[in-house]
């Protein structure tokens, strides 16, 4: 009897001592994974003047995740997205990430939007690196998540802004437009593009001809004439814009109105369809053409009109079949989504690659195995002309940059720079 009581007490003490440890271990190992779900965390702009980017990225990704879930998920687990709106504001993004990592305990972070937001989130990933929380495929081409000291905590799919701006500069210089000015957002994103233009111009022995900035969150209704006047004084042959669609559309409008008749280029982050809609909706065709004929946008995914590409066909089919909508609680401002867009195509491709990585984790997915699963991707066929490979020191899947111009009411692939802009 006495022996039984001692055993019971010993077992109780041992259990009491080991239970919190076992519980912590179990929580860590199972974070974001249940028998029925894999939970991914996303913080993006669903409100404010850049909400189109978050909404389109979400829609594209959801189209693919919906199909996977419809077909039984991954090892019987549905993919679930825990989403928060950061309005493209760094502080909100940091708070959302803390919530996702520490409270919601998601399996990984996916599909963040923007450089100023991601740049501020990266130190959090380093701080909690023992938990192996990685950021997958953020919608930004900036360098901080591609380089030390934070490059090890993120995986990128898209080409970088350095690659996009280098391509734009090289093409402009090739057709004789050597005086290149920059219009950019006054933050980390704008600076990232500015660095790209500066670096690319330096290779041609040139310097930035002129530069003007705008504040993040600028609306299309704002006047950007002061910026146009600053750049006009520099007499550029072309302007490269590194901004969001509302401000870049306002700049293009004011530039044309003030007679700055030079090619105006935008990088992929701009959200081409949103930009085009602002410049054309409610205008006469002649007016629309006047504002858009000199636009040239770089893209990090191919044209969604090119149905010869298998991934594009799949994207169009899934978008039509599932037509995903943003959860009602995140809809605070009116927004009419596009049937197809470059941003949603990027979201779709990111989701497709994400699913492949999750599949490679097997039946017992663990965060600690994520990196190895990513590195196992070698010449993976995403359905594009370019294969995807990752390795230690190679944390960006795609390298290709595409160039598009406006033809009627859509962006189409630019085939001949000379013919268009010489």
């Amino acid at each position, binding site marked *: 009897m006495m022996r039984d009581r001692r055993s019971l007490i010993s077992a109780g003490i041992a259990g009491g001592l080991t239970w919190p440890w076992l519980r912590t271990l179990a929580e860590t190992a199972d974070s974001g994974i249940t028998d029925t779900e894999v939970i991914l965390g996303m913080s993006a702009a669903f409100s404010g003047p850049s909400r189109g980017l978050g909404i389109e990225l979400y829609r594209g990704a959801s189209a693919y995740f919906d199909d996977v879930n419809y077909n039984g998920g991954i090892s019987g687990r549905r993919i679930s997205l825990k989403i928060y709106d950061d309005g493209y504001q*760094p502080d909100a993004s940091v708070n959302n990430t803390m919530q996702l990592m520490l409270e919601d305990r998601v399996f990984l972070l996916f599909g963040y939007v923007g*450089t*100023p937001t991601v*740049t*501020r989130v990266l130190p959090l990933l380093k701080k909690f690196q023992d938990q192996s929380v990685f950021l997958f495929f953020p919608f930004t081409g*900036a*360098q*901080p998540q591609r*380089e*030390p*000291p934070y490059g090890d905590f993120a995986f990128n799919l898209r080409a970088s802004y350095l690659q996009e701006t280098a391509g734009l500069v090289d093409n402009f210089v090739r057709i004789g437009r050597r005086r290149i000015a920059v219009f950019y957002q*006054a*933050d*980390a*994103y*704008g*600076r*990232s593009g*500015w*660095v790209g233009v500066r670096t690319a111009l330096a290779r041609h022995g040139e310097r930035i001809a002129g*530069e*003007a*900035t*705008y*504040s993040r969150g600028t609306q299309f209704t704002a006047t*950007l004439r*002061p*910026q146009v006047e*600053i750049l006009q004084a520099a007499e550029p042959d072309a302007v490269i814009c590194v901004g969001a669609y509302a401000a870049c559309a306002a700049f293009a409008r004011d530039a044309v109105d003030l007679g700055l008749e030079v090619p105006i280029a935008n990088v992929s982050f701009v959200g081409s369809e949103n930009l085009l809609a602002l410049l054309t909706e409610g205008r006469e065709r002649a007016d629309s053409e006047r504002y858009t004929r000199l636009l040239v946008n770089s893209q990090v995914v191919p044209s969604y009109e090119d149905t010869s590409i298998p991934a594009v066909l799949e994207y169009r089919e899934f978008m039509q079949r599932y037509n995903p909508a943003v959860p009602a609680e995140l809809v605070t401002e009116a927004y009419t989504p596009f049937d197809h867009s470059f941003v949603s195509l990027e979201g779709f491709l990111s989701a497709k690659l994400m699913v492949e990585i999750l599949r490679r984790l097997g039946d017992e997915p663990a965060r600690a195995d994520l990196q190895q699963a990513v590195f196992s991707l070698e010449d993976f066929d995403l359905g594009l002309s370019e294969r995807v490979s990752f390795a230690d020191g190679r944390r960006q899947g795609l390298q290709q940059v595409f160039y598009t111009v406006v033809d009627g009411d859509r962006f189409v692939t630019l085939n001949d720079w000379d013919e268009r802009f010489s």
Partner: protein
Amino acid sequence: MQVIKVQKLFQKTLFGVFALFGFIGVSTSILLIYTVDSYLTEEYETNSAGIAQSIADSSVDILLNRDLSALQSLIDQFVEIQGISYVYITDETGEFLAHTFVPGVPDQIRNSEPATNTTVQRQLPGMGDFVEVSRPILAGVAGAVHVGMDTGIIALQVQRAIGRQVYLISIVFVVGVLAAVWLVSLASRPIGEALTYAVALARGEEEQAAPVEGILARNDEAGQLARLFLHFYRHRAPSTPSTDGTA
């Protein structure tokens, strides 16, 4: 019988009270402006220098090892601090590597001589007045950090302090004037009664002076004066008839 009012005697006193309050108000305001302005200017300059030094120290690693967008992200966080209007970083040649200006770097700054360890006052058209503190990065060989504090914030703080001071002095002034009027009234009443009493005695109307006889019971100077008048009245010399027959 109506008591004679002698408040005119104290008008100068009241005027003096007004003048004194005015002087106190103006002099303390000037002192306050000077004190608050120099204190805040000194504090803002110290803060700017601290912030500039902090950015300069952090920038070394970023400039040498990382992308400039990380540097931009760093300085963007500092302009969220109240009073800091702009931050810019130049390299050793004076080229702007990162800045927070919209729509662009002002010509006055772009055309100024590169500085690494100075404090200058700047008047930027369309932007305002600023104190700009510069600190070197890596002893200046990697460039410099420049932090601009809006002196308009200092002016606003001074205005607020003055506003509060004027508010307080106005209340004290009103209370002081009311108190002065009351005190003057209190002081002038016995003198008026003494005067009324003296006039009545002078007219030979001691009975008429009865309503104000209470003045004789006072222990103060007015009471003593009244008793003196009564003494003179009672011991006055017999009156000499005047040539015109009046007393």
